[in-house]
């Protein structure tokens, strides 16, 4: 019974496909998998918008959406109908073809990333040998669509927002890749299913997730910073900083095209959280060995929603960075720390199973962070608050 529940979606797929003639079955099972992804994640997106607005409202001491349905739960349906019925305005001087293509390219590229994520035991659409590489290749293609949107709108805010977004995404892609490479170095495989399998062991009832190793913890922190910047979320939301740029690269989009950008942004947040879950948090494996009876997909989606919650929490808490702070942070702090972490992973890999490697790796990382923060804090000159204009 438990096993059946764990494999529920896989069995459902096999059962549905079995009605078809044999030569159609491989294609039909792929179509079913794609349909599941294409319908599930937008539904999750609709839920998350309510969740986010409610959560932000709670943080800001408001009530949030509460008019449509019980507790405002039907708000996304109202929003969807609104964006579908709104007039689609294309600026007269805009480049119509590129303006139309940009949101489509974005959403397609983002959806492709879900193909290699293992969402449960045996639940992966394409079990690719180079899965991680595929994911990053698809992620890299979204940058171009952001540029296309900003450039084709013929609006200074759009273009500025797009330039900021692309510069930011390129800068933070380097630490994103470098922190993921550590996992590949230890697992010895680019396949995401193999990475999850490698973490799905327990000793003393505790899992062997990579986040519970010194290098894994450091890499996860860097990964979290880089993903927040990659998905243009606060505190890295300069590309759409509404106080400076109206709405950034999608200023000139209205109606359903705007909804597509919104969808693409949230989907990329889901998929990048899913990748982080897979790389560092053990994917679909249970957090304790006595909980392994709970279906694997429940664990994957719980971890995913936990990451989303942290994204929302950060958005409600942190102020926006300045452009120079953003770039300095990426190139002068995150990148050197990622490079150091690569060395530490090499040490970890070749020091054998002794306890000494725990001590040495932790000491190197903590020493680096402590000395860096000591140097930076000395440079800061923190004193009593001074006012420039309000004295």
């Amino acid at each position, binding site marked *: 019974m438990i096993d059946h529940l764990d494999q529920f979606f896989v069995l459902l797929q096999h059962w549905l496909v079995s009605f078809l003639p044999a030569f159609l079955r491989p294609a039909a099972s792929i179509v079913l998998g794609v349909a599941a992804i294409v319908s599930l994640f937008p539904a999750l997106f609709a839920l998350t918008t309510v969740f986010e607005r409610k959560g932000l409202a709670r943080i800001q001491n408001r009530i949030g959406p509460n008019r449509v349905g019980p507790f405002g739960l039907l708000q996304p349906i109202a929003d969807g109908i609104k964006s579908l019925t709104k007039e689609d305005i294309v600026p007269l001087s805009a480049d119509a073809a*590129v303006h139309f293509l940009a949101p489509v390219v974005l959403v397609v590229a983002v959806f492709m990333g879900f193909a290699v994520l293992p969402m449960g035991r045996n639940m992966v659409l394409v079990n*690719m*040998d*180079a899965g991680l*590489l*595929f994911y*990053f*290749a*698809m*992620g*890299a*293609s979204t*940058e*171009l669509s952001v*540029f*296309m949107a900003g*450039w084709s709108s013929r609006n200074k805010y759009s*273009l500025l927002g797009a*330039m900021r977004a*692309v510069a930011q995404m*390129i800068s933070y*892609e380097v630490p994103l890749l470098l922190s993921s490479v550590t996992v590949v170095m230890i697992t*010895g*495989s*680019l396949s995401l299913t193999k990475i999850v399998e490698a973490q799905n062991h327990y000793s003393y009832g505790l899992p062997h997730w990579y986040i519970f190793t010194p290098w894994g913890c450091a890499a996860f922190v860097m990964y979290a910073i880089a993903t927040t910047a990659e998905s243009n979320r606060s505190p890295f939301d300069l590309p759409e900083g509404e106080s400076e740029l109206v709405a950034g690269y999608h200023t000139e989009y209205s109606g359903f095209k705007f909804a597509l950008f919104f969808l693409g942004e949230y989907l990329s947040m889901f998929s990048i959280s899913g990748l982080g879950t897979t790389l560092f948090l053990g994917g679909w494996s249970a957090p304790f060995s006595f909980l392994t009876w709970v279906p694997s997909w429940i664990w994957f989606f719980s971890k995913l929603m936990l990451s989303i919650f942290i994204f929302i929490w950060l958005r409600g808490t942190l102020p926006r960075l300045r452009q120079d702070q953003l770039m300095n942070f990426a190139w002068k702090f995150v990148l050197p720390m990622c490079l150091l972490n690569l060395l530490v992973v090499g040490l970890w890999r070749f020091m054998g199973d002794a306890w000494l490697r725990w001590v040495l790796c932790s000491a190197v990382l903590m020493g680096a962070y402590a000395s860096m923060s000591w140097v930076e804090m000395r440079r800061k000159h923190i004193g009593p608050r001074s006012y420039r204009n309000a004295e």
Partner: protein
Amino acid sequence: MSFVFYVLAALTLAGALAAMLLKNTVHCALALTVAFAGLALLFLNLDAQFAGFAQILVYIGAVAILVVFAILLTRGSETPRDGVYSRNWFAGLVIAAGVFAALSWAVLQSVRVLSNETAEPTVTAMQIGNALVGRYVLPVEIVALLLTAATIGAVIVAMHEKEDPK
């Protein structure tokens, strides 16, 4: 030569042609991206996963972005009045034909040299990694040195000039 190959070849050629013939420079850059994507799909069609995804990651993710940045930061995408075609197009044509002839000669020669390949080789990402840090480590390091030198050069070009104290 399957049907898929012809579709992908047509896509790649169309992208490359559009990159040459379109008037707007940004459109040319985007068309070039289509050609890059077509090449990546051709690699995938040949079962070369690593090469295909690396092509997408490097060329669409980085080179195309670099190209559009260069266009926007230098002179904008507006088409000049007197057209975009160079006057010495004939010399360009001759050079392009020469390079194409040399490359196709080399490719056709390789068929004769490697004619005893019977089975399709299967290359995994791991083998490529081992080759890169094993047999080909020197070329990789030389390329890395070259790129580092280029980065340092770019930083020096972009660095602020020191202001003279008055």
